[in-house]
């Protein structure tokens, strides 16, 4: 699974993307956030405020209960501020 981070979440995790072999216990977006939060303090900080975390799975906005599979691309980012 390809994981991507944008904006200040990227700065907290220290990487713009990483590869992850999807753990068996991770079934949904919410599970994945729990899992990634244990990877490093930076990851925990980036994903700390669940209300602020926006998630896209395969380029489409996803909800906490969106199911995941190992070939998905999952992106984490803060609320957008373009325009």
């Amino acid at each position, binding site marked *: 699974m390809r994981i*991507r981070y*944008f*904006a*200040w979440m990227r700065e907290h995790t220290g990487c713009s993307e990483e590869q992850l072999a999807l753990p068996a216990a991770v079934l949904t977006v919410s599970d994945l956030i729990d899992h990634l939060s244990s990877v490093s303090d930076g990851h925990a900080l980036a994903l700390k405020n669940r209300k602020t975390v926006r998630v*896209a799975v395969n*380029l489409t*906005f996803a909800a906490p209960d969106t199911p995941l599979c190992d070939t998905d691309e999952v*992106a984490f*980012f*803060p*609320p*957008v*501020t*373009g*325009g």
Partner: protein
Amino acid sequence: MIAACKIDISVGEDDFDSAVELEKLRSAGVGAIASFTGIVRDEATGPALIALTLEHYPEMTTSQLRKIAEQAADRWQLGAVIICHRVGRLLPEDNIVFVGTSSAHRKAAFDACAFIMDYLKTEAPFWKKEETTQGTRWIDARISDDEALKKW
């Protein structure tokens, strides 16, 4: 009327020319053209702005903007929709965004243009980092931008 509406999306570091974009809208063959241009501005309050850097999620940005344009074309009878959005480091007075719509009816052109800007502000994956005389910081999303969606 998605089929009849010409949709033109561009995202990149290069500047766009609002005049050229308006000219494209004219050629769509309907009489009412609405446009919005957003420009980098010093907000007057707080430290002086040096630059704004726009980060985005390249693979998602264009498809997301196209979805927003298609929603507008589904809801109003439009001749054309143009969205241009810049990324990278921008200076005060630089263009950030252009949205233009054309329709046979002025209300449809206005509403579609405002609708696209409102959705772009909340659903297109861009993030602004501000560089001021007192350091850099990521700009916070505005609650008013979420509120703006409620009217559609």
